[in-house]
Structures are given as structure tokens and as C-alpha cells.
């Protein structure tokens, strides 16, 4: 036997196992990979920021005893009836079609108990969702599936969807497996065919047209409803400025960690900016227009806990929105279904083939047997518990920084652990007073 020392087998960092598996999959099928959820790659995120807390230079508030407000009012610019929420965490738009009716009902129940809003999606408003949601935001999407003036008037706010973080510039996709009779009827399409939602609205192009479109929606709803504009994290400084110009009451900004029901993996991982990178340009646009806090800013994409909420608010955001985390709270990717995830070739925590409609947790499916697994009452309670925990966590942090309302958190309460995060969040690198891009560096 040759005793010559040999190096260990070494895998390429460039051609890692995942990359190799994707090359083999592509070569075998000839089709790009489609999946749900948002960007999975490691990105600069809220974990790269820390709060400083209080000491002598700042005075903390007493936990549990001294009040720390969490309410937020959305739509104060033009709407006759703005929305007041108890907590600054909303539920993002997810469609009936991508989710089961039970899951949509559970989102409405959980949000209502917690005192916040939920949002329809690309597929119209279901009675279950309207009935269980005290405050419901109705999305106005390019496809206009299920759009009608009666539901528009039943909504508490209207969200004109221009884009989303997982695929800024991309349309929607609901594959035939998930098109049940009910979904097909709501969308005016035959059962079982792939439903592509357009990436642009059919009757307006650009901010000048959008302004007229928003006025139409206001006219139809008697100028009562707050009108949100949702954008993906593409060019946040310019897009937020144009949304304000077009007349938005609220801007919803979704970073690349924000989820989707289904799109190409290459789109999710390679188009758009991380949530952390989007916030400061968006806030700067609002400040320069004199509209910060007048046009409210909601940010979504990778919000997981009260620390993320507090950090986003400290950077100038009025509220955050959760989608993926809300689904996990309902029961998505729960290890209790591990044997079934394995049978689908995946594992709990990694399941993202939401478009296939075979979700063992019964959430991203239209299969009645699977959907029955989710108890909307119980799942709604789990969501409200989770929202309450996030709120308590954000309050804990706010009090520790001496703030009597979570909206009083400010960039000066933060430092960054990495140069990248310091540059994106425009807060000093920990232990220094250095903010990359400022002061001549």
C-alpha cells in the first residue's frame, strides 16, 4: 500500500453540494427550479445590529411597570378612516389559492386577537377571511383575480401591489396542481391550468398613471380607505419617492427575504436587495419629501422576533409585516410532520415546494384532506401568541433604551457588528463612531 501522504478530499466552495445538485437537477429536467419562500442565502440582516441599551447617558424605563406604547395609525395622509392597530406588526398578503381557506381564516383570527391587520392576496377576498379579520387589507394586483367593487368597499384598506421582495419585477404563478374548483371560479379560469399573474398592471404604466389609478380607487370607495402601495426592494429611494408622488397613504417595502408562494429560485436568490439595505434609502426619501411619519412605511422580509421589529422601527419604519414567520407560527415546516417531509425528499425547516400543493402541515395546499389538518381556531391562537411575544420583546428593548413608545426608538440606539451592516443601516460599527460612507471615509 502506498504510504505517500495525501491531502483530504476537498469540495469546491464555488461548486458546493447544493450547486452541484442544482446542475444535476437542471440537466435532468430542462426546467428551472421553482419554489416558495424568500431568499435563503446568508445576507446582512438585523442580526448584524445591536441595541446599545441605557446606562448613565440614557435613562431606561422600568420593565412591566412603566408604559411603552405599541399602537400605530396607518393612512393619515388622505384617507377619511385611517387604520389604528394595537401592535406595529401586520400580516402580509398571501393568497387564497396559495394557502388553504383554513390557513387564511387562521391568519385572520390570529391577527384579530392580537389587534392587527391581515391582508388578502392574488386571488380575491374569501368570506372566511373577511369574517374573521377585524382589519383586512385588500390587495389590488396586476391579475385583478376576484377584484370587484363590493369587496373593495368591504376592505379596511387597499394595497396596490406593484412588486414583492422575492421577485421584484416578476409576476405571480399558481401551478395547476393547486387550482381547485373554488380557486378556479374565483379567478375565472379553467381548473387545473397554470395561472400566471402579470408582472405589470393592465391599465397603468408609471407614477403619473398610478396617481390617477389611486384616485379612481379613492373615488370608488368615497375616499375612506387608506391606500397602500407595495413595492419590492429594488430601488427603494426612487420607488418610495414615486409612491409618495403617486399619492400613497402607506408604502409597504418588501426585501428579498420576503416570501412568495412560487417563483424561480434564480429570481428569489439573485434579484432585489436585502431588507436591511432597503430601509434607510426609503426613510431618506420620505424625510427629503417631508413625509416621514406622514406617509407610513411598513417593511417586510425576514422579520422573525421582537428584536427585528425594534431594529426596523429604530431605523425609521412605522410598522413591519410578517408572512413566512406567520406561516411557521400556524404550523408550517413543523418537525411533527418529519416523516412526511422526508417522503417528499426534504426535511422540516427546509420544505419550500409550496407550489406543489402537498404541504403535510395543510397550509400551502388546496387538497381538502391535507387542509383539514389545520385547525383554524388553534392555529389562529398560535399566531396571536407569537405576535404577542414579538410585541413584548420589542417593548422590552424599547424600555431598555429609555423609550415610552416603540416608535421613539432611533438609529442612535443602534450599532452594527459588521462593516456591511453599518454601511447599510447607517449606524456606527460597534466600538467606533464610524459609519461607512459618512465623514469622508
Amino acid at each position, binding site marked *: 500500500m502506498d504510504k505517500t501522504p495525501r491531502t483530504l478530499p476537498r469540495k469546491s466552495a464555488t461548486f458546493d453540494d447544493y450547486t452541484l445538485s442544482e446542475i444535476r437537477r437542471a440537466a435532468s*429536467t430542462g426546467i428551472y427550479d421553482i419554489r416558495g419562500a424568500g431568499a435563503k442565502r446568508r445576507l446582512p440582516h438585523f442580526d448584524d445590529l445591536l441595541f446599545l441599551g441605557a446606562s448613565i447617558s440614557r435613562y431606561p424605563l422600568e420593565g412591566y411597570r412603566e408604559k411603552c406604547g405599541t399602537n400605530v395609525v396607518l393612512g393619515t395622509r388622505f384617507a377619511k378612516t385611517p387604520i389604528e392597530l394595537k401592535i406595529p406588526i401586520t400580516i402580509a398578503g398571501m393568497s387564497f389559492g396559495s394557502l388553504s381557506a383554513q390557513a387564511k381564516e387562521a391568519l385572520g383570527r390570529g391577527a384579530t386577537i392580537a389587534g392587527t391587520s391581515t391582508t388578502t392576496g392574488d386571488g380575491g377576498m374569501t368570506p372566511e377571511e373577511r369574517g374573521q379579520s377585524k382589519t383586512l387589507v385588500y390587495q389590488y394586483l396586476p391579475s385583478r383575480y376576484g377584484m370587484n367593487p363590493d369587496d373593495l368597499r368591504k376592505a379596511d384598506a387597499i394595497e396596490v401591489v406593484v412588486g414583492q421582495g422575492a421577485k421584484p419585477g416578476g409576476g405571480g404563478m399558481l401551478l395547476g396542481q393547486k387550482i381547485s374548483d373554488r380557486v378556479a371560479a374565483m*379567478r*375565472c*379560469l*379553467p381548473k387545473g391550468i397554470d395561472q400566471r399573474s402579470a408582472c405589470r398592471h393592465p*391599465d397603468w404604466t408609471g407614477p403619473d398613471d398610478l396617481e*390617477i389609478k389611486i384616485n*379612481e380607487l379613492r373615488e370608488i370607495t368615497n375616499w375612506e380607505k387608506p391606500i397602500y402601495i407595495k413595492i419590492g426592494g429594488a430601488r427603494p429611494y426612487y420607488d418610495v419617492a414615486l409612491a409618495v408622488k403617486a399619492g400613497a397613504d402607506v408604502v409597504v417595502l418588501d426585501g428579498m427575504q420576503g416570501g412568495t408562494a412560487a417563483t424561480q429560485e434564480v429570481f428569489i436568490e439573485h434579484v432585489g436587495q436585502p431588507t436591511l439595505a432597503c430601509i434607510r434609502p426609503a426613510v431618506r426619501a420620505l424625510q427629503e419629501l417631508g413625509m416621514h411619519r406622514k406617509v407610513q412605511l411598513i417593511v417586510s422580509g425576514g422579520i422573525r422576533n421582537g428584536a427585528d421589529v425594534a431594529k426596523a422601527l429604530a431605523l425609521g419604519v412605522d410598522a413591519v409585516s410578517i408572512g413566512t414567520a406567520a406561516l411557521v407560527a400556524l404550523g408550517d415546516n413543523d418537525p411533527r410532520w418529519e416523516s412526511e417531509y422526508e417522503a417528499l425528499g426534504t426535511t422540516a425547516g427546509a420544505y419550500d415546494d409550496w407550489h406543489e400543493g402537498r404541504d403535510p402541515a395543510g397550509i400551502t395546499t388546496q387538497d381538502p384532506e391535507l387542509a383539514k389538518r389545520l385547525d383554524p381556531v388553534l392555529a389562529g391562537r398560535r399566531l396571536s401568541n407569537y405576535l404577542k411575544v414579538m410585541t413584548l420583546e420589542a417593548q422590552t428593548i424599547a424600555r431598555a433604551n429609555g423609550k415610552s413608545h416603540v416608535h421613539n426608538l432611533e438609529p442612535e440606539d443602534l450599532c452594527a457588528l459588521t462593516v456591511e451592516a453599518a454601511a447599510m443601516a447607517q449606524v456606527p460599527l460597534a466600538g467606533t463612531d464610524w459609519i461607512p460612507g459618512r465623514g469622508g471615509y
Partner: protein
Amino acid sequence: MNELDLKTVGVRGINSQLHGLAQDTNEKHWVIRNPMGQHNIACGVSAPLQIEIHGHVGFYCGGMNKDAELTVHGHAGVGTAENMMSGVVWVKGNSSESAGATGNGGLLVIDGDASSRCGISMKGIDIVVGGSVGHMSAFMGQRGNLVVCGDAGDALGDSIYEARLYVKGKVASLGADCIEKEMRIEHLADLERLLKAAKRREKPSEFRRYGSARKLYNFSVDHADAY
């Protein structure tokens, strides 16, 4: 008959007046004067009114119309009768882009020409155009009928689903998955009904029918070149 002067009451005044009327109102006939090309006139009306607009209108006139019969004695801008649910919107002149976009029901008649994307994403509306339509008309059309008595521009019916297209004149080109289809008896009958409703003198036999080849309904990599 009731008259509303936009110059006096503005778009908000007109719409709030029309929206405030009950389904069974006796004040059914409304005339709007001096529209001055303003946008969003008579959008969101949900009562069986007869509304006549004397002059030109801007974007989204008759948007989301339900039950009302609206006549524009002039030209119309972008998105006329967009997302209409029911009723009738009748433009005596020409209409700009995206006329009848995403309409769910009712009848849209344009006596003159319509521009590009007429009937885009239509979901059950019937549209009769006396003149010609521009490019990408009936793009992703899901349901309903588009009748064109003149010519159709490029990429007619691109990515069409189940909408039915009838064109009397020339079609510059067909979009992805749109093909000429056989005109059967039921189509001729349907077309006759639509032409009659739009007070057209053309005969159904003068038209050709176009619709979906249904080859792109479920994604196949072999059809990737079609996109």
C-alpha cells in the same frame, strides 16, 4: 332627467352624487356636462342608472361599473370601463389603451377605434369595437368576447386563455398560443347577438374567430421558445 356640471361640482361631486343613489331610485337618468377630459368620471357606479356624458373623458371612465348604462358622447382615455362587472358602457368616439381591462361582465361598445391592449386580462366582459384595435389586445384574456369590426394590431390574443376573439378585418399578427379557430354555429349566433347589441350592421359571416391553442396552459420546457 338630472344634470350635473363637472365644471361646477368636480369629479368628486359627480361620483358622490351617483354613488349615493339607491338601487331602486327614481332618479335614473343623469346627464353630465363639461367633462373636460377629467379622469375617473362615473367610476364605481352600482345602480341601474342611465348616464350620458356630453364631451370627452379621461382615464377609467365607468371603471368597475355595475348595473349602470353609461354613454360617452365623445372620446375616452385609458382604461375605459376597466374591471366592469355588468351594465353597458358605450363610447361614441374612440377609446385609448386598455379599454375594458379585466372586465368581468357587461357590454363595452366603442363606435370608433380602440388603442392597444383592448380587453387585456378580460374576465367575462363583452367588447365590441366598431373600428380597429391596437397591439396586444386581449392579452391573457380569460373569458368573454372581443369583437373587432376593423383590424387588429400585432400580437392579438397573446397568452390568451378562454376569451373568444372575432375580427372582421386584418390581423397584423397573432400572439403566443393564439390561433385562428373554426367558426361554428354557436359562435355565429353569439356574434350576431353581440353585433345586434352594439347596433352594428356587419354580418357574422364576415368575421374570423381566434382563440387559445391551449398549448401553454401547463408549463412545458418544449414550449419555452413561445414566450
